[in-house]
């Protein structure tokens, strides 16, 4: 295994793989920052370029691009309140308020460094678990995955802050909106029959951009500048953000592990990892009232999870041919072109190629951080540009990003509807995070529920592994309540 690890590293550092990785990183950097260009679509367009490449070079190019997309996507979330990628929306909740407070540099530094640490932990876990990866993934079936999504949904209560009732209602609204569309097993149309646009459900990207970007833009349009006193200290407060990553190292490690684990579950990690890590940060913080108003932990947690999930998502893709998310589905196409068969061989015969992927993720993230650091102080200054100039540009990017979801006018209509909803939610202090978590988890949860009931009927609840997960769910719900009561009792 050690030999394969070294061979993988040599393959990535050799020519032309390293050069191609640099090109991939540069492309991913731009794609991640621009909300209108999806990382997955770009990956699909890049696939033909890999036809003549060797496997290690092809994956260095593609993975190099993919692994920086979420990192730089965080930058857009923090600076403009627009998710650069669908998975980076959670960073907005505290990242954008930090920009408004004049702490853009600190938030950017924290996002970048936590992303790097997350990526390294993600792939390190992947590398360490190579011998047990397959049995580990096979140990979980649809019922267990369903219970994991239920545990995820239980975070809605945690994310609700000071008003759990409002949070639960918003989470419920999110879950309800996840039911829109054609029902998978019965083919029944739910709340969407005359509108074909909604047959496949409410698209997440325009909804999330609407919920988060539009209210902030309306707010921004009424201001002179986004942030009146941009913190542009030595390197724009960036160093402070980097220090924060190590000051909260245990949180970053935990969130990286959450991301890696969720990435292992096919279809689950992409949208949920960052939100669940964010909820975990809220859950474990002694002062929950800071969240949503610019808490640094609210940037560190999703930043770390977002990047570590890519390491986790490689597992089902490499070991089973089951893509961990849409980006991994595109990568699966590259496997075929490179003449590789996902499956046990990737963990034995072609272990060096698997390790070359691991190294690509690590090296490309290091390069991104090194390349981005000098730019951050200039990026942080964006917050001091006149709002009258900034608003139309951000509005344009928001519409472009929304339209890229399914390339139809429906995306824009949805953006406006969710924008109005988001504005009302902000005005009346209803939390938007639980709603997004409900939307993201609702569909996956229902998919696993349909598979579980279809196979085992109600008996799946009696499986020992499911019973253990039910206990974890109960603990997750009750623990914060009990802890709060104890704290109050002590204070009294």
């Amino acid at each position, binding site marked *: 295994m050690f030999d394969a690890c070294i061979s993988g590293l040599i393959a990535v550092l050799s020519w032309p793989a390293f050069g191609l990785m640099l090109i991939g990183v540069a492309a991913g950097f731009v794609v991640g920052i621009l909300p209108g260009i*999806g990382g*997955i*679509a770009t*990956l*699909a*367009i890049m*696939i*033909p370029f890999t*036809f003549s490449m060797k496997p290690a070079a092809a994956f260095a190019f593609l993975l190099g691009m993919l692994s920086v997309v979420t990192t730089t996507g965080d930058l857009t979330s923090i600076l403009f309140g627009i998710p650069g990628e669908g998975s980076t929306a959670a960073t907005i909740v505290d990242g954008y308020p930090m920009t408004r407070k004049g702490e853009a540099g600190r938030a950017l530094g924290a996002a970048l460094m936590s992303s790097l640490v997350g990526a390294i932990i993600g792939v390190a876990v992947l590398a360490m678990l190579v011998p047990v990866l397959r049995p580990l*993934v*096979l140990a979980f*079936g*649809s019922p267990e995955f369903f219970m994991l999504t239920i545990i995820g949904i239980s975070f809605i209560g945690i994310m609700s802050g000071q008003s759990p009732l409002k949070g639960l209602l918003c989470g419920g609204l999110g879950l309800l909106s996840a039911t829109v569309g*054609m029902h*998978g*097993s*019965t*083919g029944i*149309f739910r709340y969407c*029959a005359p509108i*074909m*646009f909604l*047959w*496949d459900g409410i698209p997440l990207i325009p909804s999330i951009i609407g919920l988060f970007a539009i209210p902030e833009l309306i707010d921004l349009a009424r201001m002179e500048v986004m942030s009146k006193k941009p913190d542009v200290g030595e390197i724009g407060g960036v160093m402070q953000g980097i220090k924060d990553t190590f000051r909260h190292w245990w949180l970053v490690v935990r969130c990286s592990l959450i991301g890696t684990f969720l990435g292992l579950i*096919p*279809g689950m990690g992409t949208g949920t990892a960052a939100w669940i890590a964010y909820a975990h940060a809220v859950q474990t913080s002694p002062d929950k009232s800071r969240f949503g108003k610019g808490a640094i932990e609210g940037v560190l947690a999703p930043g770390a999870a977002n990047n570590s999930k890519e390491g986790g998502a490689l597992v*089902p893709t490499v070991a*089973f*041919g*089951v*893509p961990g998310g*849409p*980006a991994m*589905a*595109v990568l*699966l*196409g590259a*496997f*075929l*072109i490179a*003449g590789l*068969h*996902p*499956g*046990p*061989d990737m963990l034995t015969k072609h272990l060096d190629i698997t390790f070359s992927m691991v190294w690509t993720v690590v090296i490309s993230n290091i390069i991104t951080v090194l390349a981005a650091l000098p730019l951050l102080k200039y990026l942080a200054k964006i917050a001091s540009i006149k709002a009258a100039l900034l608003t139309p540009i951000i509005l344009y990017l928001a519409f472009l990003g929304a339209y890229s979801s*399914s*390339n*139809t006018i*429906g995306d824009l209509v949805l953006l406006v509807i969710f924008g109005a909803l988001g504005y009302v939610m902000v005005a009346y202090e209803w939390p938007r995070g639980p709603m997004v978590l409900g939307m993201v988890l609702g569909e996956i949860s229902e*998919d696993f529920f*349909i*598979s579980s009931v*279809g*196979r085992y009927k109600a008996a799946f609840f009696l499986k020992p592994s499911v019973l253990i997960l039910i206990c974890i769910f109960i603990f997750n719900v009750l623990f914060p309540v009990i802890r709060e009561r104890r704290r109050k009792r002590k204070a009294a």
Partner: protein
Amino acid sequence: MKNMILTRSFIGFGVVILVLISFAPAAISAPKPFWEGKTLTFIVDTPPSGGADLYARHIARYLPKHLPGKPIAIVSNITEGGSIGALNRLYHTKPDGLTIGYVNRAIVVNQLVGQPGIRFDLSKLSWIGSPTQGETVFYVRADRGWNSFADMQKSNKVINSAASRMGTAPYQFQRSIELAFKMKFNIVFYPGTGDRMLAIERGEVDAGTLDTDPFLAEYKHLLDRGVVKIFMQTGLQTGLPTGPERNKDFPNVPTVDELLRQLPTDPTGALVMRAFVDTTVLGRPYACPPGTPKDRLDPLIRAFEETMKDPGYLAEAEKLRVTPKPISAEKIAQMVRGVLNSPPEVTKLFSQMFKE
């Protein structure tokens, strides 16, 4: 002065006329090809991931080279309303030879049973061709104690099988097996192909169906490791009275046709099964909107046929594990019409599939 201006104007006009005349023969003999400087759009019904998108991008790279004027080709992923939505869009696009759409073959049965939302008639589409003939295998967990499909049928057990959502090709195939061979399937739904294959690997289900090309490309290790056995294949259509041929990768696996002749079956169910196999053969067909003029459609069909022989295309097809077995536009139209004109009892059984 006035005369001078007039004279100069006449001279100028004469020069222009002379220039135009001198260029005219060339312009008349070589009109600008229609596709020159234009964009050819490929509509695909899935997001930019998975087989349909990958294969469409593969064709889109080569087909323009064989069209006069060598247009630029782009792939547009229309996911609104799934396959039906994308086809609605294609059907109502201007038939100007600038739009080609991928048609999910499962849609043929969807139209037959009158699924809601359909605003097209497949029999009126201007077909271009299909790059490969579709073949499907029926795989079964090796540890379930069955040695052949006949064993399975005799066991009278409820078979837990994996399919995507209702109405998709795997669902139609499994329901057709159930009807034709008088068996009982409990179809479990999974979101994607990968999820279905993971379910079989962890033993959550007993059986499933998958197209032969992706099976060989991505999941052959299940067969090699003895996790699954293949009990049935739709086979390669030859048009011979002997029926479809066995795939060379599965020489010992009987075809649907052979099993229908050998085992006890339900006669109407067998007709349903044959109709389903006909749709499978379509593979991954492409079409233009109905009413595409002949002078646009013919060059497109020709370009498609030439693409299928292009050495560059074939080399990449090999890498993508697409077996090049193209089907002509004419043959596709004939097969689609055949299924859409199924006898009422077959249509009724297909309709029941979508109501369970």
